């Protein structure tokens, strides 16, 4: 199965580069959706079926769609050069490479504890018990966060509409 991992990893990297590189913002958004999908497959490799399903549901079904809607709403003229690259491309590239190198340095030089247990069959049940018992406070905060983001989006959109 190792080859499958590398295949998915290659898809992630290529599509993520596409997000940055495409000149047309819509193409970038589609590449982003592809990245999300490939990441969902990575979760499947980790036997985290529920997280994978939610990755598809939220990130492709909602976030990517929201981004496309955002482009539709904001777009005024042509799409051809809607995602131009600035002068800082080279600097950004260097920063990204250095960040990656530092992270790799940390990840590769550590004796990570590895569990010998098999992943649980029913990951949803395990997650449910965690979210609704021990981690219920972040769960409720997430609800408030959603409420505040709706209020905020409506407020800011109203300001734009009235302008």
């Amino acid at each position, binding site marked *: 199965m190792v080859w499958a991992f590398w295949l998915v990893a290659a898809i992630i990297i290529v599509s993520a580069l596409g997000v940055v590189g495409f000149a047309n913002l819509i193409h970038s958004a589609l590449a982003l959706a592809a990245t999300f999908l490939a990441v969902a497959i990575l979760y499947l490799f980790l036997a985290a079926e529920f997280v994978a399903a939610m990755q598809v549901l939220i990130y492709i079904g909602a976030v990517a769609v929201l981004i496309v809607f955002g482009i539709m709403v904001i777009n005024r003229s042509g799409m051809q050069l809607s995602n131009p690259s600035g002068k800082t491309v080279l600097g950004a590239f260097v920063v990204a490479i250095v960040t990656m190198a*530092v992270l790799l340095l940390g990840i590769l030089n550590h*004796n*990570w504890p590895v569990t010998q247990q098999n992943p649980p069959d029913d990951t949803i049940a395990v997650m449910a018990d965690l979210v609704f018992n*021990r*981690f219920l406070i*972040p769960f409720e*905060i997430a609800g408030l966060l959603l409420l505040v983001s709706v209020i*905020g989006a409506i407020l800011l959109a109203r300001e734009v509409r009235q302008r």
Partner: protein
Amino acid sequence: MALDISALVPELLVIGLGLLLLIIHILQRQPVPANPIGWVAFLAFTAIALFVVWRMPVAEVTWGGTWLVDPLANFFKILFLLAAALVSLASITSLAGQSRFASEYFVLLSMATAAMMCVISAGDLLTLYVGLEFLAITLVVLTALDRGTAASEAGLKYLILNAISSAALLYGFSLLYGMSGSLVLGEIATIIAGGATQAWAGLALPVAIVLVLSGFAFKTSLVPFHMWSIDVYHGAPTPITAFFAIGSKAAGFAVLIRVFMKLFIPWAAAWVPALIVLSILTFTLGNLVAIPQTDIKRFLAYASIGSAGYIIMGMIAATRGGIEAMLFYAMIYVFATFGAFAVATAVQAQTGSTAISALAGLSKRSPFLALTMLLCTLSLAGVPGLAGFIGKFYIFWAVIDQGYAWLALLGIIVSILSVYYFLLLAKVMYVNDPPAESAIIRVMPSMRLALAVSVFATVFFGVYPGPLINLVTQVAARFIS
């Protein structure tokens, strides 16, 4: 799992206030003006703060270690609630002309306060992260509320740069989780410290510390992670700028204290030098770049960066004394910074300008405002007799105690230089002639109260710091036992 709601009461009250204001807003046909809501919010925040004062000595670890109520958390909750109460009063002035979104404004303010309270009580990395995001999203909306491109730009800048800092923080958290297999701070500390030398042998822990530190350095706007703060402080409504400077920054320092003193203290020798560099950069750049500013909000933004450079010195000491000094400075810094921003709010509400030149001859147009600004900024500069002096003295004493006398000396030199630019401001207010056609600046009663509180606290703790010193000593002693 014990069903322990009592540990959550202050947060629930603040959230309840926000939800109540929202429901009232939805039920009303006409937008509710800022004046009554601001007073209601002020009274509610004050009452909840008194409630937390009453429960101060309580120490509880609930919800399986994910929720900590200890004197440190309660101290910062009082600080956040005080900040929110003062900001509510100042907001009445800034919202007076444009009350269309007054209700939502106070809803968001309550939510931001609740978020900060969750952040300091968070006992695990998940709650901490969700709390920080909750705070950030709320602040983004509050920042972008004003009309005009400056506010939108500020909101967008904060959103994007905060996302990057969150990514760094989250990556650091994920490394910690991978090392320990736990999200709860207490458990991580035991597991990592159990194999302290082994954990340090790999490079994952240093990378995690660097990432977490840079995340927190962003929240507390330490140089060079301060880039966002100037434009955001400039573009946000002025009371919200004050809230950024006193609330959000204090929240950053609070989690910094919690995470570094509980989790990373065995490796203090490694991260203290990094903090020294950050501290020197922050207080020198903050204080020196403030001098040429022509906008009062940008000026105070740099001054507040400078103050953060002093507060972080307490972490350099990494002792109980250092924590005490940080707590003391954070508290008196609330009043001084708020007072300065509140004067800017009052002047802006009347003249529509935040230029320093708009403050010209303020002593003739409103002696009270001018005096408040003078006392608050001199307190920030650390002039003897005001609270800021005691705060700086406390901080320097803590680092000298740990053998960093040269750092304290550098801090004192820059601090004396900073008096220069605060005196420049005083000259504008007291010596310069007021601009032609300028009128007396009217100060609303709510603003009067807020300013009086900050002036009183600044002078009182400068003359008689005993009670506050007692308090921070007890809090720090309970935190590091």
